[in-house]
């Protein structure tokens, strides 16, 4: 996962200078590129967009998409929507937690994986699902999880 250099982030901040209504747009772009929101960047945004820092912080901490800590190289997502739940997602999640040593929201010390849950992604028919870096692994069973995770260094 490539990190943005400071100039790219500054570019995004500049584009939204003086537009408090675009705070969320700016945060989404930075999160998308940088995969997390460093505190000093939030301060820069607050100043440039003329939004109190406390409000930037509220929004950055409110939404699950934003990460205030650096994420791992691979995002491992276990869907916990209702259909996946009924079709066995809890057992799958337990196995993935066991294999990665992580609870949802956590990143391991080698920054290999970040584990996430939630958000029904609309592909209920192939649940339960494991989604790694956006790639879907449908109709998963706990015993298939290890093979999938092995593919990601």
């Amino acid at each position, binding site marked *: 996962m490539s990190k943005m250099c400071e100039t790219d982030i500054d570019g995004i901040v500049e584009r939204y200078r003086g537009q408090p209504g*675009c705070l*969320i747009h700016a945060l989404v772009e930075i999160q998308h590129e940088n995969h997390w929101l460093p505190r000093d960047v939030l301060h820069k945004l607050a100043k440039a967009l003329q939004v109190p820092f406390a409000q930037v912080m509220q929004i950055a901490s409110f939404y699950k*998409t934003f990460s205030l800590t650096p994420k791992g190289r691979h995002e491992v997502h276990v869907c916990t929507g*209702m259909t996946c739940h009924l079709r066995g997602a809890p057992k799958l999640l337990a196995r993935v937690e066991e294999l990665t040593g992580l609870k949802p929201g956590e990143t391991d010390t080698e920054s290999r994986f970040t584990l996430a849950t*939630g958000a029904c*992604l*609309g592909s209920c028919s192939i649940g339960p699902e494991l989604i790694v870096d956006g790639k879907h692994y*449908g109709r998963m069973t706990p015993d298939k999880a290890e093979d999938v995770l092995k593919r990601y260094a």
Partner: protein
Amino acid sequence: MARLQSAVELDELRAKILASRDPARPCIAVCAGAACDGMDSAAVAAAFLAAVDEHRLAGKLEVRTTGCHGYCEKGPNVVVTPGDICYFEVQPADVPDIVAATLKGEVVERLVYQDPVTGAKAVHMDEVPFYKHQTRLLIGDNPKIDPMRIDDYLAVGGYAALVKALTEMSPEQVLGEVKKANLRGRGGGGFPAGSKWETTRNAPDKTKYVIVNGHEGESAAFMDRAMLTGNPHKVLEGLIIGAYAIGAQRGFMYTRHDMPLLTKHVRAALAQAEEYGFLGEDILGSGFDFEVELHFDVGIFVSGESSALMRSIEGNAPEPRPKYIRTSVSGIWDKPSNLNNVETWANVPQIISRGAEWFTRMGSEGSKGTKLISLSGHVVNSGVVEVPMGTPLRTLVFDIGGGVRDGKALKAIHFGGAMGGSIPAQLIDARLDFDEMSKLGAPIGAGGLLLMDEDTDMIEVARYLLDFLVNESCGKCVPCREGMPQMRHILTNLTEGKGKPGDLERLEDLAEVTGLSSLCALGKTSADPLKSMFRYFKPELESRIPAGSEGK
């Protein structure tokens, strides 16, 4: 492509498009809906394109990537025209056979539908049981349209309704037609759209906004995304017609950030609509100006609530506003804002084209038209289906859904996700009707229908749904922020065999107070699934409390 300046120019363009398309020429439509995409339908599409290249079939065989066909369970889906031949569970390795057969006008027998019990085959779409029992007015066009090509939408008659509205009808007449049709909101509220439009139209402020709520946070509902990803122009056309009727100058499409294909298709649709002149100034020479912006959620369910969504578009945290201030009077930046669901907007073009009278002939007394339903859970055939309102649930569950998987018995049917309710299997003859289902305690909501089999622990389901909502609460008001975790805590104890005396009474109090005093619909309806458990599955609840110790 020069901007179309009039209805006449559009007619000419449409005629030209149709003339260039030979209906006899075979076309292979590969579904790229969420589930099919998740099963790598992209590889199937790529294989077809490679085959066309390799055998120099350009001009003889068309390959089209489309939005969701609906039969998600059996994807990757491929439909071949002419003839609407349906192939299921197609893999790249099947491509050479399909190409060869199609060119010869033959069928690949091993890939067509086979009845799981009798083995009887069905080749054409109108023979396949899943499709046969549906009325696919909204989603039926999906296999014919590549969402990246506006010409495909024009080829099936797209934007003709907009022309009719702008050139033959006044805004008041358009509004009148939608009111007469009794189009009720498809996002969960079931509120008459025409009334909402009228309130917005009559609000004193001249600046008005219209919004498409494409958030679809309801768990197990995936029909809005199927509609918006597969046929964004239909939704957009409805929005433009609505803006004309209401007197809005700006529109917002609000959708999810986590679906790249959806984003790509909607952006392309907006750009192409702008290019062709369906958006912008003086649309088709009518004097009507209208622009649309695309906004994304940031991953929280409450931002699907209309006033919270508007806060989010403004750039604020999505905290809902109490409904004493109606958003149709004071919404985004305090301007009158009319918000409707994706499916609601998608209904508008056909109401204008074919008339309110035609629309009201479908459906039941109080619920008109068709409804998109996401069938899932322990169902055999999961997918996106469309049936007339008033259809008995039995038809959805057995004729279309194929019943419960693994030969198990049906225990319950759940509607409305975390804000809905479950009804027992005995009520299978209830009809898909806003008011009837509401009275039963399982409101249709956005239309996510889940089947639960005989092994389902209903208490655990109630606990799971509350858990979902606890994570999605904004935290502003006490009953939701505090009441829901307390309900979840008690239900967790019940599922773990740690029930205590007084638990049911505590649950009932929490359910009542949270329902009465929460600020927005999330908190207000959070206890509804639990209430339906009390109503229909009370013995199961009671069995978790140590015997003889109920009452505190």
